[in-house]
C-alpha cells in the first residue's frame, strides 16, 4: 500500500517536472525567437508605426507593399540571383575538388601521402583575415577585382571539405570497391559509381554548409566588390541598403527577411540531415 502511494507520488512529481520543463523551454525558445518576430512584424508596419510605446506586434495595417518598396530601391532580386550564382558555383567547385582529393587520401597509395595530408590540415589554421590583403592584391594582378570569379574561386579550395570527405570515405568498407575492381571496373569508375553514391550524406552536408557560407559571406565581398548594385551578393546588398535607407526601418526589415529566407528554408527542409551532419562532423564555420 505504502509502496503504491510513493510510486504514485514519484510518478506525479515526474510528470509535473516534465510539464514545467517543457513550458519553461517553450518560453525560452519564444524569447529566443523575439528578434526574428520583431523583424517580421516591423517589416509589415507602416513607416510611422515602427517606433511605438508600448511596442505593438501589428501596425494599423499589414503592409505587404514594404517588400515591393524595398525591392524598388535596390535591385534585391539581383543580389539574390548573384548570391545563388556565386554560392552555386562555389559549392560545385568545393564538392568536386574535395571529393577528388579526399579519394586520393583515403584510397590511393602514393608516396608522401601523409605529409601532404598534414600540410592540408595545417592550412585549416590560417584565419581568413591573414589572407584578405594579399588576396586582394592577387585579385588585382589577375584583373579579378569586382568580378564573380573573385567571389567564387579564392575560398573554393579549403582543406576542410577534403578532410570531412576523407573521414567519411574511410568508413566505407574497402570490400565494396574491391568487388568492383575484380569485376574489372577501374579506379575512376569505382570512385564515380560506388564511392560517390555511398558518400551522398556527407556530400550533402558539405554542399549545404558550403552554400550557406558562400551565401552569408560578408568581409570578402565587401572588400572585392566595387559595384555592389551589379555584382553584390545579399549581405553586401543589405549593407548598402542599410547605409542608404537606414532610417526606413520597415523597409530595411523587409529586406532582411528576404535575405534570410533562402538559407532558413534550406535548413528547415533539410534539418534532419544537417543535425546528423553536425553531430558527426562538427562543421559549418567561416
Amino acid at each position, binding site marked *: 500500500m505504502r509502496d503504491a502511494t510513493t510510486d504514485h507520488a514519484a510518478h506525479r512529481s515526474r510528470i509535473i517536472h516534465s510539464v514545467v520543463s517543457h513550458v519553461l523551454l517553450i518560453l525560452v525558445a519564444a524569447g529566443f525567437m523575439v528578434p526574428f518576430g520583431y523583424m517580421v512584424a516591423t517589416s509589415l508596419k507602416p513607416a510611422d508605426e515602427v517606433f511605438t510605446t508600448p511596442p505593438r506586434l501589428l501596425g494599423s495595417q499589414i503592409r505587404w507593399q514594404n517588400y515591393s518598396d524595398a525591392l524598388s530601391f535596390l535591385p534585391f532580386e539581383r543580389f539574390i540571383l548573384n548570391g545563388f550564382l556565386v554560392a552555386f558555383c562555389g559549392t560545385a567547385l568545393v564538392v568536386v575538388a574535395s571529393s577528388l*582529393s579526399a579519394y586520393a587520401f583515403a584510397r590511393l597509395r602514393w608516396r608522401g601521402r601523409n605529409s601532404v595530408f598534414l600540410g592540408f590540415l595545417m592550412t585549416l589554421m590560417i584565419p581568413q583575415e591573414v589572407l584578405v590583403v594579399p588576396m586582394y592584391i592577387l585579385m588585382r594582378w589577375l584583373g579579378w577585382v569586382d568580378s564573380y570569379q573573385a567571389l567564387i574561386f*579564392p575560398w573554393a*579550395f579549403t582543406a576542410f571539405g577534403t578532410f570531412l570527405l576523407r573521414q567519411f570515405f574511410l568508413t566505407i568498407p574497402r570490400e565494396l570497391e574491391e568487388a568492383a*575492381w575484380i569485376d574489372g571496373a577501374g579506379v575512376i569508375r569505382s570512385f564515380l559509381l560506388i564511392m560517390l553514391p555511398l558518400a551522398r550524406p556527407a556530400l550533402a552536408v558539405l554542399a549545404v554548409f558550403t552554400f550557406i557560407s558562400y551565401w552569408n559571406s*560578408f568581409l570578402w565581398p565587401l572588400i572585392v566588390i566595387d559595384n555592389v548594385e551589379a555584382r553584390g551578393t545579399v*549581405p553586401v546588398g*543589405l549593407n548598402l541598403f542599410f547605409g542608404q535607407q537606414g532610417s526606413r526601418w520597415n523597409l530595411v*526589415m523587409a529586406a532582411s527577411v528576404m535575405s534570410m529566407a533562402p538559407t532558413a528554408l534550406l*535548413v528547415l527542409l533539410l534539418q534532419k540531415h544537417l543535425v546528423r551532419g553536425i553531430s558527426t562532423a562538427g562543421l*559549418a564555420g567561416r
Partner: protein
Amino acid sequence: MIPFLAPLRKAARLTGPSPSQPVWARGREGRLAAVFISPSIIGLVVFTVFPVGMSLVIGLYQWPAFGATSFVGLDNYTELLGDPVFRRVILNTFLFVVLYVPISIMLSLGLAVWISPRIRGRQLFRVLFFLPVITPMVANAIVWRLIYQPDGLIDSSLQSLFGVNAPNFLGDENWAMAAVVAMSVWQGFGYNMLVFSAALDAVPRSLTEAALLDGAGPWQRFFHVTLPLVSPAVFFGSTMTLITSFQVFTQVFLLTSGGPGISTETVVLYIYNEGFSGLRFGLASAAAWVLFVVILCATALQFAGQRRWVHYDA
C-alpha cells in the same frame, strides 16, 4: 595497332589496381593520385599558401594601395605595438573573447542538457536555436540594431512597463561591448548546442544509471559522470569558438562600427579600416599576423590545458 592508342591503353590498365597490387604498380597509382589531388593542391597553393607567404612579406613593406612600395623591415610591427589605438583594439578583442566564449559555451551546454531525449519536439527546438547561425550575420546584426536603438524594442518595453528609459546600448561606452557580446551569443550558441547535444546522446545510459544507484544526485551525476564523458566535444566546441571569436567582425561593423570612439573596435575591424579605408596594406598585414600569432597562442594554451579536464579514454 594505331600508335596513339597506346597511352590510352596504358591509362586504362593503370585505373585498375587490385588490393593485392604489387609494389611496381604503385607508380601508376601515384600518377592517378596526382590527377585526383591536383585541383585541390593547385587551388590551395594559389589561394592559401602563396597569400600567406605574401602576407608575411607585405607586412615588412610600406605598401600603399596605390603607388610605390618600400621595404621597412619590422617598422609596421613596431608602429602597431606603439600605437595606443592598436593596443586598445587588442584589449577590446580579448574582452570580447573573455566574455563571449564562456557565456556561449555554458549556455549551449546547458541547453543541450535541457533538450534531452525526454523533451518532445526536441528536433524543432534544436533547429530553432540553430537558425541564427545560418541566417546572414548582416541581417541578424541589423535586427539587433533596431532592438538596441533608443525607442527600439528594449527601450520602448522598459518605458511602457516601468516608465524608465533603457541606456543607449550602442552609443554608451559602458554598454556597447556588452550589447555586442549579447547579440553574438544569441547568434552563435546554437552551433555548439548541436555538437554538445550529439555528444550527450552518445553517453551510455547505463553509466548515469549506475551513478544514480550509487546515490549520486543530479549535479553529481552531471559533473562526475556526464561532463567527463562529453569533455572531448566541449573541448572541440570551445576551441573552435575561441578561434572564431578572435576574428569577430561583421556584427561589430554593423552594430557599432567600432564605436563609440574605439571602444568596441576589434582587430579585424582595425585590419579592414587600415587596409581598405586607410589603404595601408603593409600595416594591415602586420596586424593580421599579430592576430594570427595571438590565435595560435590561445589555441596552444587550450591544447596544453586539455590534459586537466578532457577525457578521451572513457
